[in-house]
């Protein structure tokens, strides 16, 4: 695909490795002993609530901040400034030059990634077309809607044909149509062998698109692995249940960890070793049931359980 492809590992082999990366700001530890291995060609979810340490870890990968300790390897080699050109980055804090024309903006950002000027402008035109923004190519950024600006930013991330792309909260502020468009583009890029780190606090979004995930909380990684293996590690079950008259679930249900009202039905998360069938008689006694189904746990439920486990560990 490009000149530097020779250093790329095979698909599925480790592309990015973080070894005991730690970074603190004063007394606040933003990333604590982070160990990660991200294989080439996957979409890797970087999950966790706001302030968990996702952005700090990403900035360390981008060489924008220097970690206090630990090492970051790209294709087995220590990361340095020149490797940045192979990484595309869409920061959570979006930024574009408001007074610059769309085409110049994309061209400039491509040039800064080492694409020669003529080719940079050519690619800018291609990407504007792909985004359906060709008619705006000579317009200034600030004449565009927020959603269009976001699409320009997205194009700017991929314009240098990077091998690794980091997307931080990429879908924030987009309408469902555009979310779908970008999701398809992300999958297309993945099919070309691009590795994508997908950082978000919206676990439901991640669940739809990621192959592997890690969950970060309080600067530490508490879950890491492929979606399938994560689900295996958390053999939780959950039950969706609803009554015709809006009855609430009884207070003392055996084995229920969490309860949550979602779209008019209750989601009950069960602790390990508890069977949904055992709940059915109690629930049907409470009123006339209109819905009862047993589900896989959502990432949200896994996350809550994982946080509870890791906090329990700290306490004991």
């Amino acid at each position, binding site marked *: 695909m490009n000149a530097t492809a020779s250093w790329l590992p095979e698909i599925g082999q480790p592309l990015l490795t973080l070894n005991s990366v730690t970074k603190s700001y004063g007394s606040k530890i933003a990333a604590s002993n982070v160990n990660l291995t991200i294989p080439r060609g996957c979409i890797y979810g970087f999950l966790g609530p706001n302030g968990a340490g996702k952005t700090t870890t990403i*900035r360390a990968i*981008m060489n924008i901040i220097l970690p206090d300790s630990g090492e970051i390897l790209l294709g087995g080699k220590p990361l340095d*400034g020149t490797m940045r*050109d192979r990484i595309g980055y869409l920061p959570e804090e979006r*930024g*574009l030059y408001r007074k*610059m024309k769309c085409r110049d903006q994309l061209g*400039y950002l491509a040039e*800064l990634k*080492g694409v020669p000027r003529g080719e940079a402008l050519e690619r800018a035109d291609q990407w504007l077309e792909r985004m359906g923004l060709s008619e705006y190519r000579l317009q200034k950024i600030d004449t565009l809607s927020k959603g269009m600006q976001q699409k320009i930013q997205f194009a700017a991330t991929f314009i240098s044909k990077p091998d690794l792309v980091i997307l931080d909260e990429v879908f924030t502020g987009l309408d469902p149509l555009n979310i779908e468009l970008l999701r398809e583009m992300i999958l297309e890029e993945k099919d070309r062998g691009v590795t994508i780190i997908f950082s978000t606090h919206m676990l439901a979004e991640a669940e739809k698109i990621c192959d592997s995930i890690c969950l970060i909380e309080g600067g530490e990684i508490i879950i890491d692995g492929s979606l399938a293996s994560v689900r295996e590690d958390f053999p939780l079950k959950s039950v969706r249940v609803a009554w015709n008259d809006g009855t609430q679930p009884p207070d003392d249900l055996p084995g229920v960890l969490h309860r949550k009202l979602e779209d008019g039905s209750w989601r009950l998360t069960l602790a390990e070793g508890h069977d949904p069938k055992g709940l059915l008689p109690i629930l049907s006694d409470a009123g006339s049931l209109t819905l009862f189904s047993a589900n896989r746990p959502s990432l949200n439920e896994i996350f809550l359980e994982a946080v509870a486990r890791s906090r329990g560990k700290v306490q004991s």
Partner: protein
Amino acid sequence: MNKIYTVIRKEYLERVRSKSFVIATLLGPAIMSLFILMPMLLSDAGKDDERLVGFVDPSGQWLTPLTEALAEQDQGNVQLVVVGEGNSGPEERIEEMKTKILAGELHSGMMVDPDFMESRQITFYNQSVSTLVVRDEVLRPAMNQVLRQAHFRAESLSDSLFARILTPTSWSSILLSDDGEQEQDDAVSMGMAFVLIMIIYIMVIMYGNHTLTAVIEEKSTRMVEVLLASISPEDLMVGKILGIGLAGLTQFGIWTGAFYVLSQRGIEIGGMSLDVTFLTPVILISFIGFFILGFFLYATMYAGIGAMCNTVQDSQQFHTTLAMGLVIPMMLLTLIIRAPDSTLAVVLSLVPLFSPILMFMRVSVSNPPLWQVGLSWVLMAASIWFSARAAGKLFRVGILMHGAAPTWASLIRAIKA
């Protein structure tokens, strides 16, 4: 290196293509010449206005000679109006004159002492301080001449002797340099030196400030994180400063070129001809050198401060303090002109922050030893190096910093870290 060039190119073109740059380039010289012309025009303004000065002279002998003296001095617009006709006494005349001054009929009024030959006493009546210009620049010299003439006549000395005595001495000055000697018009040289210094002052402060706002803009548009994913903070800073500096140099070059062409054609402004002989190679090279070094010294400091600030407001206190480095030497200029080679002048002009203005002034009005000029350049270059390193550090620390406005203490901590 390519990336620095990309940043330079973008920053340079963005500025040079902007409307404000074109307007400033065109209007700059107009405003600059207005600065020079305004005082001249202002001093000329009002010269032709008729001024009626009330005149009370109990002895009755001074009206004619004073009128003649005023005419001789080309001050015909100042008209003497004798107040009080017939046999009214001096007191009544003065009262009448006061009334007329207060009523605005008279600009001012003067009462010549009855025994003026001996007492030399004149009382001047007026309504505002602004009339004192007429008193000091028109009436007083004329009256002095009248009195002197009266004394000469009283001693029966001839008028021709009087004229000869009053003729002032005539001086011409020759400027000596290694290249030879030449006629010198000191008023023009001094004026030119001031113009060039004003250019350095305005350009350094303006483009320094450009650097500051450009860096802050990068932060406030959140552009910086996108950029840092492609380029190191140090390279980004160097690219920005060079790009903005080149835009400044372009403007500077256009002005200097236009100025040179105009002066070659012998343009005259208000009777003062532009003198190219002042622009010796030494002065021209110093002019460009001090501008470039001055710009980079201030721009690197401004860039570092910009990286630590989130808004232009945050940066104001630092901006004011830094600008002092340029304002203080402007205030010291008269001191330097009076004794350009005194120890104080030498020491002050070697302070890197002051050098662009003070050392250049010394080069313009005097002939400082070459080693002093060279030393000031070396000191400035060294300061630029230190300031660039410090700014690079501030860039790394500050550029992603959002939140509280920085203080001098936090700035120094960040540089030391």
